[in-house]
């Protein structure tokens, strides 16, 4: 069965501090992993995906198949990073019906 866990419901850090949002998954095949973000009063939007191996808004995430993790990291958090972050898994075949984690609310304090 496919499953995504995000152990922290809420993560608070001070501006300029490093941040790491944890994500673990269970899936027997070759998954695609994504991070989606929802800013206040905005719709859910893609932040990054592991196959792109890119940095978006200073965030990076590395897929670790050995640890079945896809943690999201940023070296210096900004107040505008405050949002809900969802880790999501897609089976990797055609179509993207995701399995989402429960989400972590990131609060960046001034």
């Amino acid at each position, binding site marked *: 069965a496919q499953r995504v866990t995000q152990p922290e419901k809420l993560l608070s850090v001070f501006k300029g501090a490093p941040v790491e949002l944890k994500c673990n998954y269970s899936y027997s095949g070759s998954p695609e992993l994504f991070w989606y973000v929802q800013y206040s009063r905005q*719709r*859910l*939007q893609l932040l990054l995906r592991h196959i792109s191996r890119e940095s978006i808004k200073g965030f990076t995430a590395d897929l670790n198949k050995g640890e079945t993790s896809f943690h999201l990291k940023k070296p210096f958090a900004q107040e505008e990073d405050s949002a809900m972050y*969802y880790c999501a898994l897609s089976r990797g075949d055609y*179509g*993207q019906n995701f399995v*989402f984690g*429960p*989400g972590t609310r990131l609060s960046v304090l001034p």
Partner: protein
Amino acid sequence: GAGVSQTPSNKVTEKGKYVELRCDPISGHTALYWYRQSLGQGPEFLIYFQGTGAADDSGLPNDRFFAVRPEGSVSTLKIQRTERGDSAVYLCASSSPEGRTEAFFGQGTRLTVV
């Protein structure tokens, strides 16, 4: 339109009533998805359309839930005999057919069953 549009944005209905939620995907997107998000949880997959047909409806919780996409564009999620437990935000997303591309989400319909 510029993005995925969902109507209504809010719907309050009485227990036992029938409701329809509408999704207008991005023009040209053949893939369309419905998700349900309950308070404090991540979105939960309901159904996925490729064109007019439901390619995967394994997430529909029971036979009170049904979705259609008759012309391969607009989709309607239909809920019969609503229950208080159906209260949630219903999200729609669409993506283009070329490979594994980004799914774009609508703003959601907040359904409250009283």
